[in-house]
């Protein structure tokens, strides 16, 4: 048991967890017809349940998971996991029916029925079930209350409410103006823009997968990997000083992580050319600025000519630009992560004089 815990602790780093999750996600998106089958899912559920039971035997992990304010995360993970499978299973089923020219699941009951009692009773039963659930939850777990507010004593780690921990985890890779302001803003704008930048008329009003594989992959990557996974990392594996700890590792407040991160400009002028940083800011950060501009401005036309050729024809110029910008903004997080893990890159553009670091 102890040896297994050590192995898991040693294996668990942001890099391995993130990359293996992305790999699993890619496999699922690729072979969805097989992944949603009960034959695959039942073992996955069994392994998850057994793994959770094993993990709960660890004191540190048990304490973390049963913190009253962390209970919702467990509920969220269970429900999001279940409903993701359920929706995709239905999507795959409908894909099959479409290819065999059979009516969709949603077309089987095409009648219109009286709202009372058919719908009203369903709502009423749901309402009772939720009420019972909430009452049991409230009796079982007291709402947390710590010491009185004291601005002079900073807890370490100080964490935002759990649903914002994905954003707080993003602070490792981006400055607050991006992780805390621009990206949340882009998430909201991007979600609102979704109906206008998804030109696909298929899959309207029924579960589907194959016809909408691209947009479903896009949404699920944002939701499951960039949002939910980062919440899990931020809550359960970030300890004092936002240092990373394995799931079964005591949070040691004295853990020191060597600060070896380096800016692109330092990499270029100091390490590569060995002539020291230039005084002129624009000259110093020129390469970084070109890289960022190239990423945001030069890449979209390139994408329009290559992998997004069909999409570009379906969307008009402006819609395509907006879609591309949102897509590239979302992709910038994994890119920055990989640059951090491989070459310890801190900022691509580093102008701390104007709080402008990317």
């Amino acid at each position, binding site marked *: 048991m102890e040896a297994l815990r050590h192995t898991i602790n040693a294996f668990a780093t942001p890099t391995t967890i993130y990359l293996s999750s992305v790999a699993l996600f890619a496999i699922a998106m690729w072979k969805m017809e097989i992944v949603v089958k009960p034959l695959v899912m039942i073992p996955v559920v069994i392994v998850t349940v057994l793994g959770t039971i094993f993990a709960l035997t660890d004191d540190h992990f048990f304490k973390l998971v049963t913190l009253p304010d962390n209970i919702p995360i467990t509920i969220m993970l269970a429900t999001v996991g279940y409903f993701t499978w359920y929706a995709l299973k239905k999507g795959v089923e409908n894909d099959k029916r479409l290819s065999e020219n059979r009516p969709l699941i949603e077309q089987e009951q095409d009648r219109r029925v009286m709202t009372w009692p058919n719908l*009203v009773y*369903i709502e009423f039963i749901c*309402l009772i079930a939720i009420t019972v659930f909430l009452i049991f939850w409230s009796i079982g777990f007291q*709402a947390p209350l710590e010491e009185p507010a004291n601005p002079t004593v900073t807890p370490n780690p100080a964490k935002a409410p759990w649903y914002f921990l994905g954003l707080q985890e993003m602070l490792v890779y981006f400055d607050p103006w991006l992780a805390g*302001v621009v990206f949340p803003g882009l998430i909201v704008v991007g979600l609102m823009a979704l109906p206008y930048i998804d030109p696909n008329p298929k899959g309207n*009003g029924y579960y589907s997968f194959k016809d909408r594989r691209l947009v479903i992959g896009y949404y699920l990557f944002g*939701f499951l990997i960039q949002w939910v996974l980062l919440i899990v990392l931020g809550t359960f594996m970030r300890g004092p000083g936002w240092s990373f700890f394995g799931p079964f590792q005591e949070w040691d407040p004295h853990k020191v992580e060597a600060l070896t991160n380096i800016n692109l400009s330092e990499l270029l002028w100091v390490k590569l050319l060995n002539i020291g940083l230039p005084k002129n800011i624009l000259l110093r950060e020129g390469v970084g600025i070109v890289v960022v501009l190239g990423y945001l401005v030069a890449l979209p036309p390139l994408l329009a000519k290559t992998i997004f050729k069909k999409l570009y024809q379906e969307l008009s110029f402006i819609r395509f630009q907006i879609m591309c910008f949102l897509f590239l903004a979302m992709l910038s997080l994994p890119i920055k992560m990989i640059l951090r893990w491989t070459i310890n890159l801190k900022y691509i553009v580093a102008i701390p004089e104007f709080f402008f670091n990317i």
Partner: protein
Amino acid sequence: MNSKLKQIQKQIVESQIWKSIFRHGMPDDTRTRAMVVLSNVFLHLHPVKSREAGIRVGYTWCMGGITFFLFLVEAVTGILLMFYYRPTAEYAYSDIIALREHVPLGIMRELHRWGAHAMVIAVWLHMFRVFMTGSYKPPREFNWGIGVVLLVLTLLLSFTGYLLPWDQLAIWAIAVGSNMARATPFLGHEGPGASLLKIGDMNLVHAGDDARFGLLAGRMISEATLLRFYVLHCIFIPFVASILMAIHFWRVRKDGGISGPM
């Protein structure tokens, strides 16, 4: 005996008072069932008839309804909590302690807090369901946008409520969250571009007037912040959310009801 009861029942149901409240008989035939939905202000959110495949739990997961119900739970428990809570630095914490110590078997604060967390999860799942069934596609684009705003308001409701117990958990979670605001481009004093906004040597954006200052009503979390978050939490955001919910529900009907294959 039985006929006597029947007689009493008949008298009640045919009385002027009863008839003034319920303008139809027992909903046991199609006509009265339609009347129930049409003549009840809450039920008339629904159409008289619905698509059978659309109302199934397997299709909607009932998540929108659950979200709305949790909003009502929050409103009711929140109003009850307001009777006992004073949003001042002197009393806030001790009022919460009093709720915990003086109310035998009291779970009102628990219902409010766990209901809030549940609502956040329910909103995510509702949005996920709407996405997976492609229900944001025409003609429902606008209502999807309203829904996104409601999602943000739900998170903000939860966030502003987080400060009110006025304990260490509360102020430091809000400190972490609101610290982001000082990095707002142009509007935060540590944000990119803010130092460009100046007249002569005078900075227009500084710690005493930037976005974070506006959020916290001061340079740091203080009693003024508590009052500000209290008003946002109890009045402002629920007010805006209620209006948007009305639009959201109205548009569900106007855009063709629960979505289904064309």
